[in-house]
C-alpha cells in the first residue's frame, strides 16, 4: 500500500503496534536533553535504581537557563540567579553519573538544542527524535519524526529508549508558488498558522510539501517545521532530498564513506509514495504572501505587515471575541490600526526558530550601514553559528549598528536567563511565541522574520523590510 513519509518512519519504529487497549511502543533513535525539562526525570531514575538504557542515543546541551553575556574576568558565567546555576550544575552531574555526552556551557558545540542537534549531524532522515521541548518539531526538516515530550516521558525514554504513543493523524500542507523578495520561511509559517489556527494541527503530524517548500534551504525548512507546534501539531516533516543530504554530509555524527552512501540510498526511499493518502490537506500560494507580523497573544494572530489590526466586533463567537479583545487590551493595540508604524522598544533576533547563520545574515543585510533606534539583541543559536557569523564579520555589522552581539542560547525567546522585556514594552522578535509575558512579565511580543525584525530595529517601529532590502 502507498505510504506517506510519516507512515514509513512510524512503521519502522514500532516495537509493538497499537491495539484498542494499548498504545504502540515506539522506539526512539535520538533523545536530546537540556537542563530545564530533565532534572526530575533523572530523579525518577535514581529513585528506581535505573540506568540510561542507551547513553549513545542520548545527547545533551544547555540553552534555556544559560547566560548570553560572556564569562567575567574571574572566569565565572553571569547566571541570572543561583537557581539557574544549580540547574546547569545538575545536568553536568547527571551526565557524569549516567554516562551520556553533554556539550555544556563553554563547550565548542553548545547551543540551542534544536540548532545544535542538526549541526552535529545527529538528526538524520528517517529517525525518531524526541526532546523535552515542544520545538523538537524543528528536526522534522530532515524528514525525521521529531516531537516534544514531557518530563515523565523523558524518564521513559532514558530508561527504556521507548515511548507509548497513539498514532497521530496526518495533515498535508502544500505550498505552491514562490516566495517573493523579502518574504521568508518565517512569513510562510506565520501565514500557515494564521490560516489553520493555533489548534488547527492538534492530533496531527504535518507534512510540508509543494514547490515553495522544495526550494527552501535546510535552515528555512527548520524554521517552518519549528513552528508546527504553534498550530498544535506535535511534529512537522519535510521529505528529504539532495538539499538535505548536502547539508548533512561531513557533519560530526553523520555517517561517512560507504556508510554514507548506504544511508543516502536508504533515505531516498523515505518520501511518500505516489498515491499515499493524508487525513487532511491544506493548500497555500507562496507568491501571494507578504512579510507577516503578529498583533496578538497567540501565533495565529498574524497579519501582513501592510495590514490592519482586526476588530473584535466582527467576531461572532462570544468566547473568541472575548479572547481577541483580551489580546488587544494586553497588546495595547486599537482595532483597525495599521500595524506598520507601531512604535517598538526592543528587537530580538535569535531562538531555535531564527537563530541560525542564514537568519543572522538576513538581519545583518538590513543592519549593515544603518543604526538601530531601539535596544536590539542578536543572539546566535549556537557556538558554531556564532563562530561562522564572526568569520564573515556579522558581529561587526551588528555592533556597528549599535545592537548587542551575545553568547548563544534561548535568551529573550523564553526570558529565563535574565534577558527580558520590561512591563509594557513592545518587541519585534524572531522567536516563536507571543504569549502574554513570554519575553518577561507585561512584555508585548510581535513575531516576525529576521528581515522584519531588523527593519523594526533601524526604524524604531514596525516596518516593511522590503524597501530596505531593495535599497541595497
Amino acid at each position, binding site marked *: 500500500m502507498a505510504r506517506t513519509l510519516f507512515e514509513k518512519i512510524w512503521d519502522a519504529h514500532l516495537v509493538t503496534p497499537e491495539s484498542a487497549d494499548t498504545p504502540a*511502543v515506539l522506539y526512539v533513535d535520538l533523545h536530546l536533553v537540556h537542563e530545564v525539562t530533565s532534572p526530575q526525570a533523572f530523579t525518577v531514575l535514581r529513585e528506581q535504581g535505573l540506568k540510561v538504557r542507551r547513553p549513545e542515543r542520548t545527547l545533551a546541551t544547555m540553552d534555556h537557563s544559560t547566560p548570553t553575556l560572556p564569562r567575567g574576568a574571574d572566569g565565572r558565567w553571569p547566571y541570572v540567579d543561583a537557581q539557574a546555576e544549580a540547574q546547569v550544575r545538575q545536568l553536568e552531574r547527571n551526565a557524569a553519573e549516567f554516562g551520556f555526552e553533554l556539550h555544556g556551557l563553554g563547550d565548542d558545540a553548545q547551543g540551542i538544542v534544536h540548532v545544535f542537534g542538526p549541526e552535529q549531524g545527529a538528526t538524520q532522515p528517517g529517525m525518531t527524535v524526541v526532546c523535552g521541548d515542544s520545538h523538537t518539531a524543528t528536526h522534522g526538516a530532515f524528514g525525521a519524526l521529531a516531537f516534544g515530550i514531557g518530563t515523565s516521558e523523558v524518564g*521513559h525514554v532514558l530508561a*527504556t529508549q521507548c515511548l507509548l504513543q497513539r498514532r497521530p493523524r496526518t495533515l498535508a500542507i502544500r505550498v505552491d508558488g514562490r516566495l517573493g523578495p523579502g518574504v521568508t520561511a518565517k512569513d510562510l509559517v506565520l501565514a500557515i498558522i494564521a490560516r489553520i489556527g*493555533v489548534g488547527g494541527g*492538534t492530533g496531527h503530524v504535518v507534512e510540508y510539501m509543494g514547490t515553495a517548500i522544495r526550494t527552501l534551504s535546510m535552515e528555512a525548512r527548520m524554521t517552518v517545521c519549528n513552528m508546527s507546534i504553534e498550530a498544535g501539531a506535535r511534529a512537522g516533516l519535510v521529505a528529504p532530498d539532495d538539499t538535505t543530504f548536502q547539508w548533512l554530509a561531513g557533519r560530526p555524527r553523520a555517517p561517512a564513506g560507504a556508510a554514507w552512501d548506504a544511508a543516502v540510498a536508504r533515505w531516498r526511499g523515505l518520501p511518500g509514495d505516489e498515491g499515499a493518502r493524508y487525513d487532511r490537506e491544506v493548500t497555500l500560494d507562496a507568491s501571494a504572501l507578504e512579510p507577516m507580523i503578529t498583533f496578538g497573544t497567540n501565533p495565529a494572530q498574524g497579519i501582513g505587515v501592510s495590514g490592519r489590526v482586526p476588530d473584535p466586533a466582527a467576531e461572532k463567537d462570544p468566547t473568541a471575541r472575548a479572547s481577541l479583545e483580551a489580546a488587544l487590551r494586553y497588546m495595547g493595540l486599537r482595532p483597525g490600526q495599521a500595524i506598520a508604524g507601531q512604535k517598538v522598544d526592543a528587537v530580538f533576533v535569535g531562538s531555535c526558530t531564527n537563530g541560525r547563520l542564514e537568519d543572522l545574515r538576513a538581519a545583518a543585510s538590513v543592519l549593515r550601514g544603518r543604526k538601530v533606534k531601539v535596544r536590539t539583541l542578536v543572539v546566535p543559536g549556537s557556538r558554531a553559528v556564532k563562530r561562522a557569523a564572526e568569520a564573515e564579520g556579522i558581529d561587526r555589522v551588528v555592533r556597528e549598528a549599535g545592537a548587542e552581539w551575545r553568547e548563544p542560547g534561548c535568551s529573550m525567546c523564553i526570558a529565563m536567563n535574565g534577558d527580558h522585556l520590561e512591563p509594557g514594552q513592545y518587541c519585534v522578535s524572531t522567536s516563536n511565541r507571543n504569549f502574554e509575558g513570554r519575553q518577561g512579565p507585561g512584555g508585548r511580543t510581535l513575531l516576525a522574520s529576521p528581515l522584519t525584525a531588523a527593519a523594526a530595529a533601524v526604524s524604531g517601529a514596525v516596518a516593511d523590510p522590503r524597501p530596505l532590502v531593495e535599497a541595497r
Partner: protein
Amino acid sequence: MEPLLTLESRTVVLPRENVDTDQIIPARFLKVIDRKGLGKVLFSDWRYAADGTPRPDFVLNQPAAEGCRVLVAGDNFGCGSSREHAPWALVDAGFRAVVSTSIADIFRNNALKNGLVPVVVDAPSLARLMAAPGATVHIDVSAQTITLPGGGEARFPLDAFARYCLLNGVDELGFLRSKEEVIAAFEARRDR
C-alpha cells in the same frame, strides 16, 4: 499515582480560549530541579500584581475557588510548551480535572501522567459549564461522563489505556519496563 475513579467538585471557570502553558506557569519558574510546590505560582502573572499582591478580580483568588478540583476553560487549553510543570502546578494547587472543548496534545499527555483528567466536551456542554461557575459536577472516569449544571451529563473520550492507568493508578514507566524483552529483540533485529 493514586487511582482516580470518580471526582465531585465545584468548578472554577476561566473564560479564555488558548490558555497557554506560559500562562499556566511562566517560564521563569522552570529553573527548579524538583517538582514540588509549583501550585503557588500557578497562573502567576494573572493571579498576582507585579509587586506580588494577589489580584482580587482573578478567579483563583476568590474565596469560592477554595477547594475546587475541576477547572473549566475555553478551547485549546494547554497549548504551547511541553513543560510538565504545567500539570504539576495544577495538581499541586488541588486540581484533578481540566474541562474544555479541546486540549493540546502534549499537555494532555503530561496531564494523564499526573492523574489530571483531560475532559473534552462538545461546545454546548462547555457553554453550560461556563455559564455556571462554581456548579458542582461529578466526573466518572470509568463511565467517561461529567454531569452538567441544570441536569444531564456529557460523555468525554478517553483512550482505553489512559483510562486503565487512571482507574488503577498505573505508572506508564512500569508498563514500558515490562516490555524490556521485546525492546531488546527490536534492537537486535535493527542492529543486525
